[in-house]
Structures are given as structure tokens and as C-alpha cells.
């Protein structure tokens, strides 16, 4: 469970990215965070992983206030949260297999287990035949699926996806979200996806939280999004 209590984030340049946010996301939910660029979507995701700290408020993950975590506990929080970054953040000098293996390496898994688990997740996202490819040899959709595979390989409790369909054509974008929906359905992983792709949001009929200038404008169970 993730909970924001009166969370405000003000950047040092004075820009208010989020203002007085209150929300609760239950385990196993699939939530779209939508809004135009600069609405505060990415800021919200970065706050959940403690990449940044809020100016005010409280953020709870599994009923624990993550703002009170000591530095040594942050990696453990992040191991429970898989993230698909807006700019993918793949290591260009490592193969698809090696990229996906990173979260397992950092938790000290045995090489034989890594081999098995990475292969299984690559099969799940349909990239097993591209395991030895480098990111530069992949299409946009494949890069995105590699990033998803890396985010889910350690079976996180929650998956954050920041604009995962950003530069993809509509068909590939839908395929990517299908993968996320399958993970949500099969593994009961909580999915929080930030996007401004109205077509995708409206197609999947999930909970939609609309952000506008750092504030929650709407929060609907089977919501819709109408972008400008």
C-alpha cells in the first residue's frame, strides 16, 4: 500500500511540482497517473522511490514512513519497487540479458538462479531471442520491454512506469501496456503508470488520477482522460 499525506514538493528554483497531495493506492491496483507535461507525474514517482524528498507531508509504503528511512534502508525499499524510467536508463554496453540481470546481481543472487530467472522474464516479455543483443540493436518497443523486464525480474511488490509508451507507435504502445496489465493480473503487482497518452488510458479502463499543475484534479475508479 502506498499513501501520500499532504505531500508538497517545491524545487529549489521555486517551482511547485506537487501541492497538498493526498492519495492511497492499494496492493494489486493498476493506476494511471495522467496529466500534461509538468503536471508532477514524474515527481510523484520519484518521491515513491525516495529519489527526491518532499518539502512537506508524509509518504507511507507498507505503512512505513519512507521519509524516516536511514540511508541503508533505501536500497531495500527500492528492491520492492520496480521502475520503468522515462529515458529507459539501460546500460548501453551491456546486453539485454545483462541489463535485466542487474537487480538480481545487486541482491547477490547466484549466477545459476540469475540465468533461470532472467530467461523466464525475457520469455514473459517476448525477448528471449534478443537476450544477447545490445540496446542499440533493439527497436523502441523492444527497448521498452527490456526496461520492463528489468523492473519486474526481482518480482517487486510495486511497478512504477514513467511514460513507458512515450515514443512508441499506438500498436507498440498498446503491446507494452498489455505486458504491464498481464504482470498486474498474473503476479498481483501494483502498477502505477504515469502517462499523457489518452488513447491508452481510455482503452484499459483502470483507476485514473489526473494531475494538473501539481494538484489532483480527478481520481476515478474506471476513469477517462481527455488531453488537450
Amino acid at each position, binding site marked *: 500500500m502506498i499513501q501520500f499525506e499532504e505531500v508538497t514538493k517545491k524545487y529549489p528554483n521555486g517551482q511547485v511540482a506537487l501541492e497538498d497531495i493526498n492519495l492511497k493506492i492499494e496492493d494489486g491496483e493498476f493506476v494511471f497517473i495522467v496529466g500534461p507535461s509538468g503536471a508532477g507525474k514524474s515527481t510523484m514517482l520519484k518521491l515513491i522511490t525516495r*529519489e527526491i524528498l518532499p518539502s512537506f507531508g508524509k509518504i507511507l509504503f507498507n505503512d512505513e514512513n519512507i521519509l524516516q528511512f536511514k540511508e541503508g534502508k533505501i536500497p531495500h525499499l*527500492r528492491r520492492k519497487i520496480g521502475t520503468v524510467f522515462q529515458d529507459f*536508463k539501460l546500460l548501453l554496453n551491456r546486453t539485454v540479458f545483462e541489463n535485466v540481470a542487474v*537487480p538480481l546481481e545487486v541482491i547477490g543472487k547466484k549466477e545459476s538462479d540469475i540465468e533461470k530467472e532472467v530467461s523466464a522474464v525475457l520469455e514473459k516479455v517476448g525477448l528471449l531471442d534478443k537476450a544477447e543483443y545490445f540496446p542499440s540493436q533493439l527497436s523502441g518497443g523492444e527497448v521498452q520491454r527490456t526496461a520492463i523486464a528489468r523492473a519486474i525480474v526481482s518480482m517487486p511488490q510495486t511497478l512504477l512506469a514513467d511514460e513507458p509508451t512515450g515514443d512508441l507507435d499506438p500498436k507498440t504502445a498498446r503491446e507494452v501496456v498489455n505486458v504491464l496489465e498481464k504482470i498486474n493480473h498474473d503476479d498481483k503487482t501494483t502498477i502505477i503508470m504515469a502517462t499523457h497518452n489518452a488513447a491508452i488510458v481510455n482503452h484499459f479502463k483502470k483507476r485514473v488520477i489526473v494531475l494538473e499543475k501539481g494538484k489532483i484534479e480527478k481520481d476515478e475508479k474506471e476513469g477517462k482522460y481527455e488531453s488537450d
Partner: protein
Amino acid sequence: MSQIKSTLKLLRRSPYQALAAALAMSLTFFVASIFVVLVIGGQLVLNYIEQRPQVIAFFKDDVTESKINEIIASVKSTGLARDVKYVSKEEALAIYRERNKDDPLLLESVSADFLPASIDISVRKAQDIEQITKVVKDRPEVERVITPENLVEQLVKWTKIIRLGGIIFVATLASVSFLIIIMVIGMRIAIRRDEVSIMSLVGATRWYISRPFFIEGALYGIVGSSIAVILVYAALLFYSPNIQEFLGPIQVFPVSPLFFVYLWAGEALVAAAVGIIGAAIALFRYLKIR
């Protein structure tokens, strides 16, 4: 991928920086090894000289045995002598004969009366030669005193200079190596900025991220010191005939291989520590984890 494998992969990716760091370490520890060998060699020479009689006092012909015993007692009472040995006229003749046994001409006309009785004094510390010499020289029964001039004094002085100079020189080189390691590892951290950031975001601990850099620092030290010891070993092996010729009767060769094992182990330990501390400073200064 294990951490060591990943470190080696990183070294292969930018071999010139790695080479610079390892060579700087090699140079430092090559010079350090030479100074260690010089200091130990100097000490061996000094030990040899200290074990020989350094002061020989020859008596006048008419000196009685009781007077000689009195002089021996006065030398012993200083506490500076390790050994005082009386050499009678007959013993002196025997030594003379032994030394010149290949030259019958020199032996023909010599009898015990020609040779003076003497005492051979070995001192505990080379620095005390002067004081002992003074004790015997002042006695009217003593005809002449022979000392190895100021050889020992010079040797002690040079050993001290080498030791001090070595420490200063090696400390300077070690500082340079240290700075090079900080610089090289700092550059590596900068090159791997994205990787560090990704690792941190997927849940790597600070220690997990830092470990390859520590391994890298230690590797520079171990490789550098190993090269240095191998070079010094080879050089010593190559020049051993010349060195032995220079040292004459002072036997320093063959040097036990165990000495080089200890030298390597000691230097590798110090060098690895230099590398690890250098890495720690670079990490503290440049590794920013969100």
C-alpha cells in the same frame, strides 16, 4: 557477473588509465624495494664489521702479563667491548705463518720475537670504536693502536642517510601514486555515473556500488608492487657477481628467495592499502548516490 569479473572488465575497457596507475605504483615500490635492499645490505655489512675485531692494540716488548691483564680488565670494564682477545707473540707468529704460507721467503727470517703481542677488541656498537681506542691508546704499555679508520663511522652515517633519504623519497613517490589512484578512480566514477545511478535506483547498496572501485584500487597496488619486486629480484640476480666483488669477504649472496617472498608480501599489503585508501577518498569525494 561477479564483482571481480566486472572490475576486470572495466580495466580492459580503459586500459591506459589502469596502466598509468599500476606503473606509478610499480615505480614507487621499485624504489622502495631498492632502498629496503640497500638498508638491509648496509646492515649486513655493518654486522660483519662489528663482528670483526675493530680495534687492535699492540704492546711494547717489555710489558708484563699482569699489565696486559690490567689493560684487558679496563677495556672490559667500559662495557662497550663484546670480546677482548689476547694474542701472544707465539700466536701472532702462527697467524703470520698461516697468512704467508705460500711465500717461504717471508717465513724464513721471522721469529716470535719480531712480532708484538696484542689484544683484539670487538665492540658492541660501531659507534663506540672511538671511545675504546682512547682507552687503550692512553696506556704507556701500548705501542700502537690500529682501527679501521673511520670506515665504520662512514658506514653508519651512510646507512642512516640511505634510510632517511629512502623514507623521504618513497613517501614522495607514494603520495604521487596515491594522487594518481584518486584521479584514475575519480575518472572511473565519472565514466560510470549512469551505471552507478541505475544500480542505486534498482536497489544496490552503497557498499555494492563501491566494492569494484576498492577492488580496482587494491589491484593497482598488488600488480604494481609485484612488478617492482620481480624487477628488483631480477636486477639483484643479474648484478650479484659485481656486488659480491665489491663487498669482498662480506658474504651477502645468495639472497634467500624467502626474503623476496616477505618483501613482496609486505609491499603488496602496503600497496593494496594505499590503493584502497585512494579509492575510498575518490569515492567519498566523487560518488554521489541519490
